[in-house]
């Protein structure tokens, strides 16, 4: 008998095609938009994560600045001495430490025949050690590493085309680097980095155009108490460090902080009193991005859920209208032997079918719509140009749990929205219902 009443519900829905269709659309849009929004959020999230993951997961940035919930690194404060680099390198669980000394450039020159020079404005140049490449996850495409003390540099792939795509710089070429203090250094290119995804680290630190050895390019000095002798040592603004493995990142972070703050470090002396030492880990960056993404995702998902609820209200609305319209029919059915339960089922089936069907079609719509939306986002990112566009498009990343949530919520809303109208129908007094005009 339940099956027969189910068939009756289907028949009724078939008779009210337009009405059923419009109600369905409400649910489809609700379920579909939840899936679309969550998929888009998920896809963008994965994309952004992937952007940051190019930086070593065990890596961290050590600097001075303002701490707190959102640490701000101040790369202008030069505080870390060579002595500090060695001490931090000696801490347990540290794999490598690379200092970063920023060399401000005026321009870059290329000899182009007798007394003829090509000149380009300066680019970012970091003085560091070979360990830097390891921490940045950067690899040489051609050439070798520079040697400390020699006029040798490594350049990025994009910088190799600074004098024109037709005249790419090659390993073995010599360029002239003019520092901001007007001192010009003849430099031999010994290596070119592989083109990589954008290596954003933190703040304004990124993979530089030129990497050079400290000597002879970088010359910021401080006094340092090395042992009992006071001598002049090179000082840097930022250090990059790498833990031995992912499980020791936190320990290393604590140890570095401890070393810097316990009074024995040079940096402790030179640091501005108003600033703190900051150790920013890859994990921290990823977590921050996650937090931001999840706020955005929650917000838009909430909006999508509202549309799902509106779909449910649509069902309730149309079911109430249908029940009222079919009042006399309900009375007739009661007169010929229908029990209240039968009437309840008759209408509950209808809203359940709408909920189910809307859920299923909504999922399909969501899948197709997601592909479309993510593709659109991906194109927009390409059109934006800049760093993100080099990383390729946004991959489609469905979040399965939201498929289930959207479908289940859709169906539950469908059923609950049908309960009140169905109860209204089932509770009718047959005498009154039969008299209804």
């Amino acid at each position, binding site marked *: *008998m339940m099956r*027969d*009443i189910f068939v*009756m519900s289907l*028949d*009724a829905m*078939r*008779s009210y095609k337009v009405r059923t269709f419009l109600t369905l659309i409400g649910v489809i849009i609700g379920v579909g938009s939840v899936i679309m929004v969550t998929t888009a959020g998920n896809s963008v999230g994965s994309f952004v994560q992937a952007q940051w993951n190019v930086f070593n997961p065990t890596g961290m940035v050590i600097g001075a600045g303002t701490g707190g919930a959102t640490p701000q690194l101040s790369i202008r404060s030069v505080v870390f001495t060579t002595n500090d680099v060695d001490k931090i390198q000696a801490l347990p669980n540290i794999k490598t430490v690379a200092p970063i000394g920023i060399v401000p450039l005026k321009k870059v020159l290329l000899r182009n025949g007798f007394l003829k020079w090509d000149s380009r404005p300066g680019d970012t140049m970091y003085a560091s050690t070979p360990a830097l490449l390891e921490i940045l996850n950067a690899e040489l495409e051609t050439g070798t590493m520079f040697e400390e003390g020699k006029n040798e540099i490594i350049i990025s792939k994009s910088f190799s085309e600074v004098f024109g795509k037709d005249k790419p710089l090659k390993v073995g070429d010599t360029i002239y680097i003019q520092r901001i203090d007007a001192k010009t250094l003849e430099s031999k290119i010994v290596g070119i980095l592989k083109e990589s995804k954008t290596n954003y680290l933190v703040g304004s630190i990124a993979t530089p155009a030129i990497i050079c050895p400290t000597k002879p390019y970088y010359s910021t000095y401080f006094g340092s108490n090395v042992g009992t002798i006071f001598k002049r040592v090179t000082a840097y603004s930022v250090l990059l460090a790498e833990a031995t493995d992912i499980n020791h990142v936190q320990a290393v972070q604590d140890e570095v902080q401890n070393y810097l703050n316990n009074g024995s470090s040079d940096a402790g002396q030179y640091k501005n009193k108003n600033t703190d030492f900051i150790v920013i880990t890859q994990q921290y960056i990823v977590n921050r991005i996650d937090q931001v993404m999840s706020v955005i995702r929650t917000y838009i998902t909430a909006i999508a859920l509202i549309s799902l609820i509106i779909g449910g209200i649509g069902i309730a609305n149309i079911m109430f209208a249908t029940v009222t319209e079919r009042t*006399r*029919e309900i*009375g*007739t*059915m*009661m*007169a*010929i*032997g*229908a*029990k*209240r*339960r*039968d009437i309840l089922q008759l209408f509950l089936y209808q809203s359940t079918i709408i909920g189910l069907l809307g859920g299923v079609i909504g999922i399909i719509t969501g899948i197709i719509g997601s592909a479309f939306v993510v593709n659109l986002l991906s194109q927009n990112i390409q059109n934006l140009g800049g760093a993100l566009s080099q990383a390729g498009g946004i991959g489609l990343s469905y979040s399965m749990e939201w498929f289930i949530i959207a479908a289940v919520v859709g169906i539950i809303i469908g059923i609950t929205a049908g309960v009140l109208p169905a109860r209204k129908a089932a509770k009718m007094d*047959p*005498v009154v219902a*039969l008299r209804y005009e």
Partner: protein
Amino acid sequence: MEYTTSTEAALMSEYVIEINSLTKIYTSGKNEFKALNNVTLHIRKGDFVAIMGPSGSGKSTLMNIIGCLDRPSTGRIMLESDDISTLSDNELAEIRGKKVGFIFQKFNLVPTMNALKNVALPLVFLGGSRGEREKRGYELLEKVGLTNWATHRPSELSGGQQQRVAIARALCNNPSIILADEPTGNLDTKTGEQIMELLVALNKEGKTILLVTHAIALKRFANRVINMLDGEVTEET
């Protein structure tokens, strides 16, 4: 069957409906309205009873109570030895399905179902299988002469045809009584006559029929005429 005294057995089988001192009071706010006032009425198996009276006389209320759609305020009503005065909604629904066939002025067919499905609808609520329903449906459509219209929806049928489908539906569960509430009210005279003839034919087959109407012309089809006024009954002789 068990042995009973002859008079008791005769009485039990004789009356399809036994109504004793039935009163129905409607209250709205502080106002009380006596729709039925101490009605006593016995209807035998095979009777064709016309219940006549102006609107507001209580004939619809009486019919609703006999048809198990409503309960009396006081008094007792027996339908084929079942006391239906105090049954629950579900029990009443079951008795309606099994023992009462309704014919309405406005036919009250389900517009989304074809004639066949409408006729067999009462069987759905009694749990009849699809095969049973089709068999019974065709049987009854043949009886009312609408076999060729089985797959047509009510909107495709004339008024007379719709009422014949409704009569077929009323017969579906082989009820003890048929309650016809102004069955010709929405039909022209000629079609009305045909419907009445169909009811008379059913009565001749042994069906007990209660006809509720205020059309005096229909009186002649009945073998008993009961007049109602202000909730009280008087029988014409």
